């Protein structure tokens, strides 16, 4: 038996756009979009990064308690999420700001969880995007169950493009060690469910390198469960879009799950509380900066023609997005503990309502009558 490692390059990496913006072909992936499609993906990437940078700054200014930046992972998120159809369901992680952007969640709705004004932020059914799970890996089982529901509903494999649906679930490389994740993959394979597992392998789980989570490239996990796995350059939005489109199609047609390993890099800290200099060496980050997911799209677009006007307009749009986001953050309503009592159950619990009453009465005493 030959020896492999998590970072072995004996498994093909699907790439359609090189780091310097050259368009290349790959036998396992096709991308046939137009220049407008490219511009649209570029816009998603740039605006996702702007949301991320603004939120990071808001945390630094004390407006958010925490922020997990997605810088560097925008292509893995945007490329795969753009392959979703409206009727598909997505389950992103706490770092999936690009997925939320693509699903149409207003960016300010991402902030509440990190500002501490809410535990949620949006209605999952409105955007077909679940709330991010903070418990690592938990969402993979939810995605699998949702996919089971789609199958039971007959919303898979009918051949009707507006009806057939699939589920895409995002997780990190660290998450692949959780029992929940392995159970989800086993379950999804057993029932041949329409779920696409997207592992954003950003090489770290906080400080722990991916080599501690696996002895083989993560994509190889799929073999053992019995469904296809594909390893893609996670900083290449075209390749991500192409492999995700194919995997979702396969799922919607009723042929079961796929594992996509998007090889990417967390260019920033794990969260605003983290200091990556404690566990990352030397030039690693510089090497990845040269593989920036946005730069290569921009370089490619420039090769195709003069897009300076579009780029300038996008810059303005990003500026405005930042202004709006800052304003929306400051305007977020403060949470009222009294409201928390009302959302524990569908059917009110009288005992809990009594506690609510006691709390409100106590508060009004403390504040001299203004509850």
């Amino acid at each position, binding site marked *: 038996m030959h020896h492999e490692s998590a970072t072995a390059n004996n498994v093909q990496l699907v790439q359609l756009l090189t780091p310097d913006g050259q368009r290349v072909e790959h036998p396992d992936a096709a991308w046939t979009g137009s220049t407008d499609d490219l511009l649209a993906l570029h816009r998603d990437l740039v605006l996702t990064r702007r949301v991320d940078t603004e939120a990071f700054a808001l945390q630094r200014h004390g407006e958010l308690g925490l922020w997990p930046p997605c810088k560097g992972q925008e292509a893995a998120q945007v490329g795969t999420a753009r392959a979703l159809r409206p009727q598909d369901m997505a389950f992103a992680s706490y770092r999936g700001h690009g997925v939320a952007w693509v699903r149409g969640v207003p960016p300010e709705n991402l902030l509440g969880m990190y500002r501490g004004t809410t535990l949620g932020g949006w209605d999952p059914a409105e955007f077909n995007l679940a709330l991010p799970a903070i418990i690592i890996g938990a969402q993979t089982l939810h995605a699998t169950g949702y996919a089971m529901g789609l199958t039971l509903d007959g919303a898979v494999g009918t051949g009707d493009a507006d009806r057939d649906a699939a589920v895409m679930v995002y997780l990190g490389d660290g998450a692949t*060690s959780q029992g929940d994740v392995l159970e989800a993959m086993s379950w999804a394979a057993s029932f041949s469910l329409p779920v696409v597992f997207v592992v954003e392998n950003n090489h770290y789980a906080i*400080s722990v390198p991916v080599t501690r989570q696996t002895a083989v490239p993560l994509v190889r996990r799929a073999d053992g469960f019995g469904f296809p796995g594909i390893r893609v350059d996670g900083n290449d939005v075209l390749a991500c879009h192409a492999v995700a489109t194919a995997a979702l199609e396969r799922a919607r047609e009723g042929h079961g799950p796929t594992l996509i390993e998007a090889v990417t890099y967390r260019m920033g800290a794990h969260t605003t509380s983290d200091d990556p200099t404690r566990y990352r060496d030397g030039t690693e980050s510089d090497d990845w900066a040269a593989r920036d997911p946005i730069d290569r799209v921009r370089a490619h677009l420039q090769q195709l023609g003069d897009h300076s006007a579009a780029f300038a307009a996008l810059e303005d749009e990003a500026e405005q997005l930042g202004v709006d986001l800052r304003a929306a953050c400051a305007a977020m309503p403060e949470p009222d503990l009294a409201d928390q009592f009302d959302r524990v159950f569908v059917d009110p619990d009288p005992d809990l309502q009594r506690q609510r009453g006691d709390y409100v009465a106590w508060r009004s005493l403390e504040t001299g009558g203004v509850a």
Partner: protein
Amino acid sequence: MTRRMSIAAAINAGLRAALESDDHVMLMGEDIGRLGGVFRVTEGLQKDFGERRVLDTPLAESAIVGTAVGLAMRGYRPVVEIQFDGFVYPAYDQLVNQVARLHHRSSGQVRMPLVIRIPYGGGIGAVEHHSESPEAQFVMTPGLKVVAPATAHDAFWMIQQAIASDDPVVVMEPKRRYWESGEVGDTPEPLHASQVRREGQAATLVTYGPMVRTCLDAAEAAATEGVELEVVDLRSLSPLDLGPVVDSVRSTGRCVVVHEAQRTLGLGAEIAARVSEECFVHLEAPVRRVTGYDLPYPPSRAEDEFLPGVDRILDAVDSTTDDSVYAGGES
């Protein structure tokens, strides 16, 4: 000779002492090695004791505790870190069904000298699952011991005593107090003994962990109005040492239990039951509980309202001395 240090530094020093004195002691957890833990409690230990004894584990809590069981069977003394309170649940099955039972099941042939360290509790402005107080779930599990140091002195000694224990010990660490400093003396108290932290005659505050400081603050505030409160720090939640509580309540006649954890079936319920059994004729008022409400932990900008604070504690004390409020159930 005493040394002044933070609670985090005291645990670090205690872990270091344990690693030095017994080479079967090993630390396991997420990010505890190179990073030194997300709270830096294990800072420098991997550097000094090596990667075989201070392990950065895969991201899998059930595996961390489950493999610790096997390591313990092989003669090791694993000290496991659960990064935050809310992440202990993936390991709950191993803790409750395996760790807690093997000694009993094997008629004493298998020992489980495990320590499970859990930074717990709220008040740090964190996102969901980072502010939980799950201690009662371990206290109600036969076969687990549970301790909750509140001072730097106890943090230093109790972690070592827990490691030296041949029984599994869950150490609930008061994360919001990690950076508060205190004197660490030369002599430990017994691991499973509660302690009077402040003497007083008006009423007894019974508490543990991060709420010890809050109760002492409340007692300080009460003292400025001439009301002297006795504060008992339970220190050990399982087994409970209620001797000092009973003695205190027999003299004050009033008892208020304070914890961050939700009220229903929290430690306060057990203590109220035992105090009413043992102090019934001495009680001048029903035992009161000042706790988190029976809610999932709220968004952080509402946590100050959720967590017991000085005002709620003093109101509860007042309610034990004021006949007119006996009827109300809440403090």
